[in-house]
């Protein structure tokens, strides 16, 4: 659902240590570990063999999980490759297969991938960062809220079935010695918060019992994790980092000691920084620490969100999605507001005792320094406060949720509790604080710390405020206010009025997004590359204009449909076009051709286009569907690799560009605007992805996808030619020469020459179709069938027509069943009646049934045409003839108005073609029927 592009940062990959082995022939050397360093940043990530990593996926929010098996590169060092063992995320398993699991998949669950057809060699460039993967026994429950940053393996997945996986396969023997860090610089911070809190809400819903303590522990763990990484990143103490990392898995006490050690060693440095107060030099690293703090959080949250959003049961309603988001925003807004207050009256609120205790704490425990340090970057860096407020706000929300789980909807979240929770969480930031501290004092001490930070912050800000910064502040303040006010507005009827306030939300988000997208620009040059639109785009899907979760359905009937009672009814059901026949007769050759075309493409893992033409009702779409059914079956029994079949129809969309939206929707379930969808698809099909299944795309009614620039068609035919697309496009249209007629050269050329034409059915084929459909239900006389098929074959060869006529004939037969001579079978007579009904033109009957004056008028028309020698006359001219004819017939002549009325009536039936009636007597009259027909109809009287 969410999407944002990370600013691309140059990353340097280096081998660490000597190659453990070197293949002399291939000149490939294998290494133990890999160091990833982001240019300009001092910290590094180390990837070891046996460690689990995240690998760039098709889009950023769907990374792949894998375990490093081998790290190797060529001598020159230009090519760095990783051999991996893949894991499947829940989102990667097709929904249909997910049912095999027999339970709801855990959002953080992954599956050991044992399927075929998977490239296990990836470029080291695509590694995102390490990730924790835990193995769980098949019966073991998932740790309830669990560590939000780790993933769990229970089962293996081989694209067919789930199996229990052995823990030895999953768990690497040694604890990975690396400091986990996001290998990419921070993404625009504004975008994740928009969705992340929502996911938080989701998580809460998904988990059955949100035990407050557990929740808090979870939050704690996460924070600890990020802090650990931050400190490690700064100090570059690999060993310590290692222990820290493992500590997150280990007991809390161990972690504590490690931290203490860590913090102690660091304290002087921190002090120094405090004194320096000139962050120009250090600002970069500060920024990093901060952004890392944020980013880590965001990323993990993003992961979670993605896990959740991609987990199949999408039962959550809009209200739920929106609510937590607003809440967090409000909380953050509240927090934004609070510093100002706090910094002015810094010492007044906390009672002295608490203050003392907290001071004591400050003095005694060096960790407190750590806390200050953690807070300090927020101040020393010229990031607007807002930025650090965002994650805090989230913490606040979380903490609050943890402490008061009953306050579910948060419709009454006041500023005060938010603030309190915030303070509380701040405490939790520093896990070394004695747990015995009473909550209130905790809160107060935290507030104290906060206020100190604020003093620092204001000091620093004074010094280093730059134009851009102040401008930012200026910009930001009003929007903040608005945020708050609008969120307050919404408080009342959030759930129900979610729709009404849609506009509000959008506006808010826009502001929010734009404010956010500005933020990083001043901070980091690289991030200016982030397209400004991205956050906006990302926001769009989460503020749906329609309730996306509304299930489109027609209510079910109160009584079941009646089953067919006799042979004729049975026959009628079988003859209905909608009934799916057991087989498709008469299209064996075409079936074979399409089948082998698609099959070969799927097996080869390549792409291609095919153009299928034929007049309506010749079984084009039915044949393709049949092919797909067979292929799907083949894929199910593992004869061919699994593939994805999607179908779009030019007639079923309002605009050619909607094709992108529909393809994307069917491919990934995402909703996006047409432009965005096009970009996403473009990206998907042009980038390599290791675990991609082939996609078969059926484009029905291709001619309607024509646009002036033909870009839709161009893209559809261009994607299959991409190396990594694995896309097979089958297109269907009516005209044989469509590529030549409407396509410009570059489009036609991409479509290629694989064409197929469906000939209209011959009478024998039609007969065979009906017979096969009837399938031994004896309802028709043989002659009758032949008559129908011959008649239809002569006219159009449209199988639909044929079936419709047969159906109508059974009805006529049923109606005439009372006739004693009837055999109960549909005979020639019935078929003839049906044919007459459907094919005979009604004009002659209409003229016969017309009123006297109308008939005279028609005669007058013909007389006038004959007189003029033209096929057209004005009403005035015809009317003169009409009057004369009336006199001949001995009728009273009619007035002009009446004559016009007669003329209009004939015109409405389209027996006559008329000019607009405002022309009155001057309107021109033409016949829509041949003169002979009119004469014939009038004579028959």
């Amino acid at each position: 659902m969410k999407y944002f592009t990370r600013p691309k940062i140059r990353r340097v990959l280096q081998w660490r240590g000597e190659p453990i082995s070197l293949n002399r022939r291939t000149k490939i050397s294998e290494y133990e570990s890999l160091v990833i360093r982001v240019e300009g940043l001092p910290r590094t990530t180390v990837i070891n063999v046996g460690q689990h990593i995240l690998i760039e996926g098709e889009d950023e929010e769907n990374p792949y999980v894998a375990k490093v098996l081998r790290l190797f590169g060529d001598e020159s060092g230009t090519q760095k490759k990783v051999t991996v063992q893949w894991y499947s995320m829940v989102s990667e398993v097709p929904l249909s297969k997910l049912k095999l699991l027999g339970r709801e998949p855990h959002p953080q669950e992954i599956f050991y991938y044992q399927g075929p057809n998977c490239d296990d060699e990836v470029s080291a460039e695509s590694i995102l960062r390490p990730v924790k993967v835990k193995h769980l026994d098949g019966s073991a429950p998932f740790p309830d809220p669990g560590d939000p940053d780790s993933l769990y393996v229970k089962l293996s997945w081989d694209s067919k079935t789930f199996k229990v996986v052995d823990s030895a396969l999953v768990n690497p023997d040694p604890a990975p010695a690396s400091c986990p860090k996001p290998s990419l610089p921070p993404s625009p911070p504004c975008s994740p918060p928009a969705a992340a809190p929502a996911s938080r809400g989701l998580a809460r819903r998904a988990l059955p019992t949100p035990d407050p303590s557990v929740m808090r522990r979870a939050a704690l763990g996460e924070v600890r994790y990020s802090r650990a990484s931050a400190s490690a990143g700064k100090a570059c103490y690999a060993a310590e980092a290692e222990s820290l990392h493992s500590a997150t898995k280990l007991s809390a006490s161990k972690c504590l000691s490690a931290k203490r050690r860590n913090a102690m060693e660091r304290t002087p440095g921190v002090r120094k920084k405090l004194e320096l107060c000139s962050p120009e030099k250090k600002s970069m690293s500060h920024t990093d620490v901060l952004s890392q703090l944020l980013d880590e959080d965001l990323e993990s949250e993003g992961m979670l969100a993605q896990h959740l959003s991609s987990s199949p049961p999408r039962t959550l309603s809009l209200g739920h999605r929106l609510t937590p988001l607003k809440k967090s925003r409000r909380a953050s807004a509240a927090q934004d507001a609070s510093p100002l207050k706090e910094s002015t009256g810094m010492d007044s609120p906390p009672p002295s005792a608490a203050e003392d205790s907290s001071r004591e704490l400050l003095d005694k425990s060096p960790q407190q320094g750590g806390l200050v340090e953690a807070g300090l970057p927020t101040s020393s860096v010229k990031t607007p406060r807002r930025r650090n407020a965002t994650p805090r706000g989230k913490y606040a929300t979380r903490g609050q949720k943890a402490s008061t789980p009953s306050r579910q909807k948060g419709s009454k979240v006041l500023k005060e509790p938010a603030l309190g929770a915030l303070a509380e969480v701040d405490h939790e930031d520093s896990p070394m604080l004695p747990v015995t501290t009473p909550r209130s004092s905790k809160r107060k001490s935290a507030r104290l710390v906060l206020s100190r930070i604020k003093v620092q912050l204001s000091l620093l800000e004074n010094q280093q405020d730059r134009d851009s910064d102040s401008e930012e502040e200026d910009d930001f303040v009003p929007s903040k206010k608005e945020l708050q006010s609008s969120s307050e507005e919404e408080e009342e009827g959030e759930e129900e009025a979610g729709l009404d306030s849609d506009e509000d939300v959008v506006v808010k988000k826009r502001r929010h997004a734009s404010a956010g997208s500005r933020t990083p620009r001043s901070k980091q040059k690289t991030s200016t590359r982030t397209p400004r639109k991205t956050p906006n785009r990302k926001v769009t899907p989460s503020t749906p204009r329609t309730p996306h979760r509304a299930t489109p359905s027609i209510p079910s009937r109160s009584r079941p449909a009646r089953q067919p009672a006799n042979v004729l009814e049975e026959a009628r059901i079988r003859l209905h076009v909608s009934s799916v026949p057991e087989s498709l007769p008469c299209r064996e050759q075409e079936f074979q051709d399409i089948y082998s075309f698609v099959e070969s493409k799927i097996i080869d893992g390549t792409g291609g286009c095919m153009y299928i033409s034929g007049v309506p009702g010749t079984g084009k779409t039915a044949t393709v569907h049949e092919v797909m059914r067979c292929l799907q079956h083949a894929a199910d029994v593992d004869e061919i690799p699994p593939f994805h079949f999607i179908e779009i129809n030019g007639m079923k969309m309002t605009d050619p560009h909607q094709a992108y939206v529909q393809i994307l929707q069917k491919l990934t379930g995402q909703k996006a605007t047409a432009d965005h969808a096009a970009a996403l698809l473009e990206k998907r099909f042009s980038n390599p992805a290791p675990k991609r299944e082939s996609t078969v795309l059926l484009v029905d009614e291709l001619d309607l996808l024509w646009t002036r620039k033909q870009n839709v068609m161009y893209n559809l035919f261009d994607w299959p030619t991409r190396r990594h697309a694995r896309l097979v496009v089958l297109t269907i249209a009516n005209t044989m020469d469509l590529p030549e007629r409407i396509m410009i050269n570059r489009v036609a050329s991409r479509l290629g020459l694989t064409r197929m034409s469906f000939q209209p059915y011959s009478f024998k084929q039609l007969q065979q179709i009906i017979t096969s459909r009837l399938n031994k239900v004896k309802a028709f006389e043989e002659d009758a069938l032949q008559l129908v098929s011959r008649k239809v074959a002569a006219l159009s060869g449209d199988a639909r027509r044929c079936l419709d006529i047969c159906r109508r004939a059974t009805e006529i037969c049923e109606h005439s069943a009372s006739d004693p001579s009837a055999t109960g079978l549909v005979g020639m007579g019935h078929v003839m009646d049906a044919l007459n009904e459907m094919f005979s033109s009604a004009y002659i009957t209409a003229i016969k049934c017309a009123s006297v004056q109308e008939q005279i008028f028609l005669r007058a028309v013909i007389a006038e045409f004959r007189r003029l020698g033209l096929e057209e006359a004005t009403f005035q001219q015809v009317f003169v003839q009409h009057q004369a004819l009336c006199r001949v017939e001995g009728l009273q002549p009619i007035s002009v108005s009446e004559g016009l009325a007669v003329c209009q009536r004939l015109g409405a039936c389209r027996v006559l073609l008329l000019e607009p009636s405002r022309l009155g007597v001057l309107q021109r009259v033409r016949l829509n029927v041949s003169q002979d027909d009119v004469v014939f109809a009038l004579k028959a009287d």
Partner: protein
Amino acid sequence: MSKRKVGAAHMPVGECITQVQEILRQRFCRQRVPDRPGGVEAQHKHLLGLLKRTAVHGESNSVLIVGPRGAGKTMLLKCVLRDLMEEKEVQKNLLQVHLNGLLQTDDRIALKEITRQLSLENVVGDKVFGSFSENLVFLLEALKKGDRSSSRPVLFVLDEFDLFAHHKNQTLLYNLFDVSQSAQTPIAVVGLTCRLDVLELLEKRVKSRFSHRQIHLLSSLTFPQYLERVQTQLSLPDDFPDENFAQNWNSSIKAVCEDKSVRDVLQRHFNSSKDHRTMNMLLMLCLSRVSVSKPTIKPADVLEASRMCFSDAKANMLHGLSILELCLIIAMKHLNDIYEGEPFNLQMVHNEFKKFLHRKSSSMYNFEQPVIMKAFEHLQQLELIRPVDGSSAKTQREYQLMRLMLDHSQIMEALQKYPQCPTDVKQWAMSAFG
């Protein structure tokens, strides 16, 4: 007045008249569906069977009801729906969607209306959310989810069906017919149209998906049947509160229908058109002449009503013209005679008029040029004359080419009836040469 004392069920005449007016008006204004469809029993049976199969068996169908205006298409459909709804099995099952080509002028509106009438889940209150494409996808999704045996059948009634065929790409029709031809929610599409060539309007793909069932409503009514219908339309039902009044009324109606002059008038109407609507119009005019002081319809009422029906609209307008305007019309008529319908301009008309004045040498019609201009413009406003298409506003008004929108017979008729028309003007109009 003595009748009033007989029987318990009598009412004052005034009340009876009100009742009569009410009952008959409802009948004439088609607010009430007649108990049985007159003359279209076969079609009724056909349509009823078809819709019943959709409602009961879940069989998708599509059908067009074609017939000239006033042939009773809507009446037939209403009758069928009423009969259909009387069945228990259908009552709770059938969903109905009524669309009109004159109201739902494009697919976007039509889709919103469908979603609203089906009250799908993206409808809140009376508003339908989502863009056009979202709505389409949503609706198709909804229809796709159903299947023959489990979902409620939907009846789509498309009034003025031919107008739907003019929508862009015929998206709506394609999708409706496509659903009706595939194993989705059972639907029945009933189109009502007066165009006999409606199938030619359908795009080939749409046409292929349409089942080609057409029910033609072409009345082969004879004059005795027509008379009978007039009588039944005017007759009071048996359950009229005041029995005596009803009897009297019905017998008087019968007498009226047997009257020679009335029959002649009705014959003329029958010759002109057989449709229900013009007949109802005539009867409505008759009915409006019934009052407490005149509690029955007399033959004279019918004659008067008929006269009103047949009166020529344009000729009526001529009665309201001034002498000068009438003179100009006559001059135009002569110009038309001379130049065989070629267009004319004000100057020519003025010249023609002046010629007439010279001959008569009377000064009573001596008008200034601006006055004549004004009269000319008035005629144009009344659309008795209209500018020739090609001539733009660039030319001076005096020289703008015009055409007369009247037939000679209309002018002569108007002159006959024009109050106090001067004899010389009349003579001028009648004379062959200006």
